[in-house]
């Protein structure tokens, strides 16, 4: 009992790692701290919010009432602490491209803060400050809102739609703020304020112009990279097609259809083809693909060369019975006949037919002993049960297995 309880107790003492989740309210810091310390994330979040609000209120009051500029730094301390955690705590492991979502509309909140600080301007203007208090802060908040809307929110699926609106509002706000302060600066003839105001106006203009430019530049770069990759791929494909595939064909030709070397070369050729032209087959997962896969596997296992020809389109493997019976016929041909085997599959709107023909010595289908289930059970029985037909014709020229299944009539 104690021995069993011990590891549990040890596990309980180990704190969960300090990582930020991917779906967060603001930055994931509160959740991370809460999980790590064993506290409820809500409690941590409320603590952060309360301290931040108190600090902000203290800063505004101290500046307005006593003109104490250092109060601002003290008031900003909780925010700085949050940012410090945010920057240093790693994000939860996951795919790099997985979207990150935030429940708080950060950009909009920043824009709100900018607006609130701008409302302070009429009061701080009268204080004897070189630059009216709240102007730089308000402009900074607006710029942050633009940056956030352009970078983080543009990748967030929930905010992608609203991000451009917030960005435009913030840019317009910056321009208005700059013009208003510029006007006031000329009335009060304060050069420094005028400089700050002009900077703010320029920032607003830049915020309008830059993000679309950056977005277009990024898209162009991504397009160029994709094009370059595609070009490189087709170049490699063309080269391999002209060199390696040719050589593999020569090897097969020189070594003879049934030989070990030809078999390996053939398997390699198929593999290379699949790799080269991967994704160009629009009917992947259909009967044709299924038959080609079977052929490749059997060519590896037996001294056989299987040519698969398909006509018509089968959007899916019509039935497991058809594929299973075709496989059995192919295995028989590969095992007992070897050499060249032709598989022909034809899909019409009414039926799907598969023909497997080999060049072996042939056999008498009626003389196959009862113990051998291959043809009677795996091919004929299976097709009959599925509502189709199967026939075997064998002679000295080889054997042909015919499988047919009506379409739409299957169970």
């Amino acid at each position: 009992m104690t021995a069993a309880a011990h590891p549990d107790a040890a596990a309980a003492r180990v704190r969960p790692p300090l990582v930020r989740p991917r779906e967060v309210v603001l930055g994931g810091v509160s959740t991370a701290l809460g999980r790590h310390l064993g506290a409820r994330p809500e409690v941590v979040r409320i603590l952060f919010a309360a301290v931040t609000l108190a600090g902000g209120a203290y800063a505004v009051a101290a500046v307005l009432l006593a003109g104490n500029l250092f109060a601002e730094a003290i008031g900003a301390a909780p925010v700085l602490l949050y940012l410090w955690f945010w920057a240093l705590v790693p994000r939860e492991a996951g795919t790099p491209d997985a979207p990150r979502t935030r429940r708080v509309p950060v950009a909009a909140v920043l824009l709100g803060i900018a607006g609130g600080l701008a409302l302070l301007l009429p009061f701080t203007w009268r204080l004897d400050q070189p630059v009216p208090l709240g102007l730089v802060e308000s402009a900074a908040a607006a710029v942050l809102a633009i940056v956030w809307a352009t970078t983080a929110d543009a990748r967030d699926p929930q905010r992608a739609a609203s991000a451009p609106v917030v960005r435009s509002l913030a840019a317009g706000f910056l321009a208005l703020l700059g013009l208003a302060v510029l006007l006031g600066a000329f009335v009060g003839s304060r050069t420094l304020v005028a400089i700050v105001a002009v900077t703010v106006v320029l920032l607003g203009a830049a915020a309008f112009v830059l993000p679309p430019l950056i977005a277009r530049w990024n898209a162009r770069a991504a397009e160029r990279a994709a094009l370059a990759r595609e070009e490189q791929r087709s170049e490699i494909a063309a080269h391999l097609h002209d060199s390696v595939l040719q050589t593999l064909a020569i090897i097969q030709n020189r070594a003879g259809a049934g030989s070990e070397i030809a078999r390996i070369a053939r398997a390699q050729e198929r593999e290379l083809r699949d790799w080269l032209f991967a994704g160009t087959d629009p009917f992947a997962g259909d009967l044709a693909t299924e038959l080609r896969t079977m052929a490749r596997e059997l060519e590896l296992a037996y001294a056989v060369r299987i040519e698969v020809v398909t006509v018509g389109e089968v959007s899916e493997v019509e039935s497991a019975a058809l594929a299973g019976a075709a496989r059995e016929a192919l295995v028989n041909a590969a095992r007992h006949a070897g050499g060249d085997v032709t598989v022909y599959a034809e899909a019409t709107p009414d039926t799907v037919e598969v023909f497997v023909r080999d060049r072996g010595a042939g056999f008498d289908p009626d003389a196959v002993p009862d113990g051998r289930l291959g043809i009677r059970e795996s091919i004929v029985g299976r097709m009959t049960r599925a509502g189709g037909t199967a026939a075997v014709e064998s002679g000295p020229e080889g054997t042909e297995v015919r499988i047919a299944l009506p379409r739409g009539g299957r169970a």
Partner: protein
Amino acid sequence: MTRVLIVDDHSIFRTGLRTDLGDAVEVLGEAGDVDAAVAAIAELRPEVVLLDVHLPGGAGGGGAEVVRRSAALLGEVRFLALSVSDSAEDVVGVIRAGARGYITKATSGVEVAAAVATVAAGDAVFSPRLAGFVLDAFGTAAGAPAVAASDDELDRLSAREQEVMRLIARGYAYKEVASHLYISIKTVETHVSSVLRKLQLSSRHELTAWALERRLL
């Protein structure tokens, strides 16, 4: 003995094929690119050109370009396409340019010699894959336009031509097709040549679109 020109940009393949063909044919010469091939055909006047579909040089048109540039000689020189490509675009392209058959490079020397003889006799050589392409391209499987009423209709296959193509696609040799359908080998050859003519002359734009769509498999 059939006079043959081997056109392929791989010297190992040319040498190998030459050895494989042995005494069955008389190899007049070899060429490694489009321009050399066109010049050699004009000069040597072979009966049959064993033509690689992918060839460097010229305007980049490969084997099809060789056939097109030798169009004036198509009456006396016949082309048999030889390729590692299973692409419908390549195969149908070189056939429509004027080649009289298509076989894969993995085909053994004996079979190549037999195909050369068939082509030299003015008949067409269809591999199972080419027969499959024809059936697919003429939409016989899609059940759409019914079979041609007469053998002269260019855009459709007649019922008999379809049967012949199906059997070839199933891996039957001409002789076996003949005995299966109770017709003579000569009749089978006539049907195959007729299908080849349709493949070359049919103006069905879907044929090219279809080949492009299939790409390489």
